[in-house]
């Protein structure tokens, strides 16, 4: 441990880049989450599956409920404007946005790693993005 002089300790540029994007995206995601959920539960927009139907089946295993209700799943709600502009689909999109935040942060950070000559971490960041994107395609669970 060292005595603190006057200057702040160095925080690497890539870390500041990650933090900057994370800050903006997390605020946006939380606002979108709140807004879309309000539209969902107060029925400001039409719903693909009604809340009452979800509540009547939420004690079932996920595949069973899916079989009965055909609720939004993966990217299914993006198939058209009609299926997208619904309360449950927008609320689902909010969850997707939260899951995509690390991907965007890493995509912004990877070039900074390369510029700062930290090649190994640039590659790790890109590999991480690849893993998250593969998971997001859903091919692993089909």
């Amino acid at each position, binding site marked *: *441990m060292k005595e603190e002089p006057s200057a702040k300790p160095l925080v690497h540029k890539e870390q500041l880049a990650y933090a900057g994007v994370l800050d903006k995206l997390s605020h946006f995601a939380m606002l979108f989450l709140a807004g879309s959920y309000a539209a969902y539960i107060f029925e400001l927009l039409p719903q693909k599956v009604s809340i009452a139907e979800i509540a009547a089946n939420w004690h079932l295993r*996920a595949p069973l409920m899916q079989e009965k209700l055909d609720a939004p799943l993966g990217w299914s709600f993006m198939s058209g404007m009609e299926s997208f502009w619904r309360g449950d689909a927008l609320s689902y999109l909010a969850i997707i946005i939260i899951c995509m935040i690390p991907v965007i942060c890493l995509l912004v950070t990877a070039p900074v790693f390369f510029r700062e000559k930290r090649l190994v971490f640039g590659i790790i960041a890109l590999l991480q993005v690849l893993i998250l994107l593969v998971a997001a395609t859903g091919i692993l669970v089909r």
Partner: protein
Amino acid sequence: MVPDRAAAAKRASFARGGAAALFAALLLVLPATLLAAEPQAAIEAAWWAWVLLLFVFSFVLGIFAVLAGVGGGVLFVPIVSSFFPFHLDFVRGAGLMVALSGAISAGSPLMRKGLADLKLGLPMALVGSLSSIAGAMVGLALPAQTVQLLLGIVIVVIASIMFLSGKSGYPEVKVPDALSKALHISGIYYEESIKKEVSWQVHRTPLSLIFFLMIGFIGGMFGLGAGFANVPVFNLLMGVPLKVSVATSGLVLSINGAAAAWVYMFKGAMLPLIAVPSIAGMMLGSKIGAKLLTRVNAGSVRIIVVSMLAVAGIRSLLKGFGI
């Protein structure tokens, strides 16, 4: 401490332990049907009541989680799956989102201060995200009763670890290992409480990678945030200062959680109706908890939380056995 004060402190400690034990016993004997109402019609009629109750419950859990120094997911999944009518699949999906959202919203300032460290977190997240995807796939493929039973075992083990394990504020690492040296995993941050810069380096990196592989699997399988395990591995195994361990654990679980959450989404185990009030409640509760942190006896809260975890674990075990 003068003898009177020592005796008073001892009595207070006994009282706290007694209160926690009483609370735990009450939870254990409380019939599940009281909270998880059986008649389906009642559930259909009062969906908003369940959602509201979930929000309030998550809010309270959020307060307790911060005061006890644990992540939200580890409390959320066992307790909500034991006392609410939702299937464990949806509770696990919501649990991942609770952990992920909490880590994401707290992440930026911690990174700017140099507490959450990308170079320390990224290699661990890389292996952890792979195994968390695998864990989520296995967890959703296994029979629900088996998962419930395994969850019970994991939660009881976590409660025991929390009860027994220590922590080290500033562990000393004399010689960093070859891998961490090659990757330049080390850092420095300003510790406000002691007005000093704290520099750190790590050891046992290869072994820790194996641990993070296992932790990712468990986190994905049960929808737990896994901060309960990330922090001891960073702190006690690798020798990272406690604050850096806690902050970097958030970074790791935000990436691992995002990876596993996709499996839940594609398997239909992510219901916004359940996940969103849980996220909102937990995040608001965490903010209140952070404000109360200086005024509340964190030791007493920790006893209560460990008791709650133990009870939820035992309930999961009983449910797993079909009792």
